[in-house]
């Protein structure tokens, strides 16, 4: 079980919750795959159809940016916190 922290702009996809539990551990990819099963619209706002984390989306595991670790192969231990944060870049002015 890990805790997924959902940004405000995406909470409508999980019924308004800021934090949801995901019953998968292993890697970021496995967690996001499970997100795709339970909340497919949330998953495709985080990853494109090629399965890559979108350019202006950052994913953190226990406070560490997975792009600085092993990307979607980054390990996600039990009881970890996986946080999705839209980048401050990329928005319209």
């Amino acid at each position, binding site marked *: 079980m890990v805790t997924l922290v959902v940004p405000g702009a995406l909470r409508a996809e999980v019924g308004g919750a800021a934090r949801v539990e995901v019953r998968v551990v292993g890697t970021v990819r496995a967690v996001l795959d499970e997100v795709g099963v339970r909340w497919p*619209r949330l998953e*495709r706002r985080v990853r494109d159809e*090629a399965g890559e984390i979108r350019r202006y*989306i950052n994913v953190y595991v226990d406070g560490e940016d997975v792009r600085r670790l092993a990307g979607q192969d980054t390990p996600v231990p039990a009881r970890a916190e996986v946080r999705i944060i839209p980048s401050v870049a990329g928005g319209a002015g």
Partner: protein
Amino acid sequence: MTTVLAIGTNKGLYLARSDDDRRSWRVTGPHFAMHEVYAVAIDKRRGTPRLLAGVSSPHFGASIATSDDLGVSWHEPERAPIAFPADTGATLERAWQIAPGPAAEPDRVYVGTQPSALFVSDDGGATFELVRGLWDHPHRPQWGAGYGGQAIHTVLPHPSTPGHLLVAMSTGGVYRTGDGGASWAPANKGIRAGFAPDPWPEFGQCVHKVARDAVDPERLYAQNHNGVYRSDDGGASWSSIAEGLPSDFGFAMVAHPRRAGVIWTFPLTDGSHRFPPEEKCRVFRSTDAGATWEGLTEGLPTEPFYPSVLRDAMCADDADPVGVYFGTRSGEVYASRDEGDSWSSVAAHLPDVLCVRAAEV
């Protein structure tokens, strides 16, 4: 009589509604706040009109949302409506054009995308498939990107001949199919590409918009990146109709929904000087298929005017007389309820207007 005007901007969709034959408007929005709405359509082929919006976000990607209650609520399927198949290696950036199919195919909807591709839906816009015949075209690696990106921005299904369809892209030009999308051929003969070493290439033109004549479906009108053209043979050949306009640059081209030979455009000075000619806010109308043009200004701003009107930010409704609408990159929207003779403001101070579509509902 109710008229709906959908206004897509770079920070959401606004909906204007008039219940008094387009004399006054009530504007709601933004729907999809902080999302770009490059494309919108009002599909009246079924009993309940359907709004379709191409919604995209640099953060969260692009999708198609639909509304069957004129924008009160919106629906987006669990599965991505549009996704490039894995073998293409491509990912959807934006939907640039939503085109309901011909009346005989009420569930068919086409979407032109960035990167340049065509998708087709046979369930009213809930799910789409890539049109492989165009994606696999041998010219595709040579299609370029315009200033706004590489996209198919124009999709014109033939109203009466099944399987016939025309698309236009920047850059790349016009392509046609006569077999339902299995095979495609460029259709740019006579369209000049002044930015290319060979100004008369088979393809590669930067066509900005194509509109189809209401009465003669083989007659087409094109606003090009420098050049305004007409085809009388379904796109096989094109000839200039720019004489009489103050410039041959611009983005929009709109055809009357019922009368032959009536078109509107909003010229800009040049690709390197994207302001209205003489800094005047003017719509130009032809009622003789481009042989002559008249500038329309009644009710429009008279002070120096600098905003652009983008390729889908001008449209006509289907009322009688026809209403004509345009939105600017400075967030102003103007409407005419007399086919362009006079104009009034619908909205001001919106974000950049990317597209407008209007219909009686």
